[in-house]
């Protein structure tokens, strides 16, 4: 049993705890930008999940999923930021 397999449960539990904190911020966040920050962080955390999965299975094609996820999360955050910045700034 390799070292990473021994540590797999604690590592994934740590990342899941991060996701729980982000979900709490999405549910409670007093303003819309708070929720958007948490959504952005959640997208980055998923890339971390995929990286750990790649390391433990040894399948390199999973890294393509990480690349695409990072790109889509970035574009989504930018779109939301444009929408929110426009709603009050230019009227």
């Amino acid at each position, binding site marked *: 049993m390799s070292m990473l397999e021994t*540590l797999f449960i604690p590592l994934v539990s740590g990342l899941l705890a991060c996701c729980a904190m982000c979900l709490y911020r999405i549910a409670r966040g007093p*303003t819309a930008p*708070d929720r958007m920050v948490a959504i952005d*962080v959640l997208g980055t*955390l998923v890339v971390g999940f995929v*990286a750990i999965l790649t390391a433990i299975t040894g399948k390199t094609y999973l890294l393509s999923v990480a690349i695409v996820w*990072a790109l889509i999360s970035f574009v989504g955050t930018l779109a939301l930021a444009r929408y929110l910045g426009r709603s009050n700034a230019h009227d």
Partner: protein
Amino acid sequence: MTETLGTTVIVIGVLFDIFGCIGLLRLPDVYNRLQSATKCVTVGTCFILAGCLILLGSVSGAVKGVICIALILISSPTAAHALARAAYWSGVEPWQGSVVDRYKQDLADVSEGEGTS
């Protein structure tokens, strides 16, 4: 040796992620949360990817992983910048304990310059 190094780097990355998310949970306003969340989670995820590359040790994995790290290092600060701007424009006030607001001064300077010219 390689295995120990890679696993250590992954553990460091997960710790960075956890501290960043604790900051997201505990800090007082959206700008502070943005800074903690963006910096710590970006670096943490890059560390996890780097550890994954060390453990894989193959060329195709290395190329994809380096592309992914570069993408995250470029896109995450850009998204944070756009979010901070959007938050400011949508009227979120900084926390009462904040000591300086340079963006407000800049906006005031710009509008003043437009008024006199």
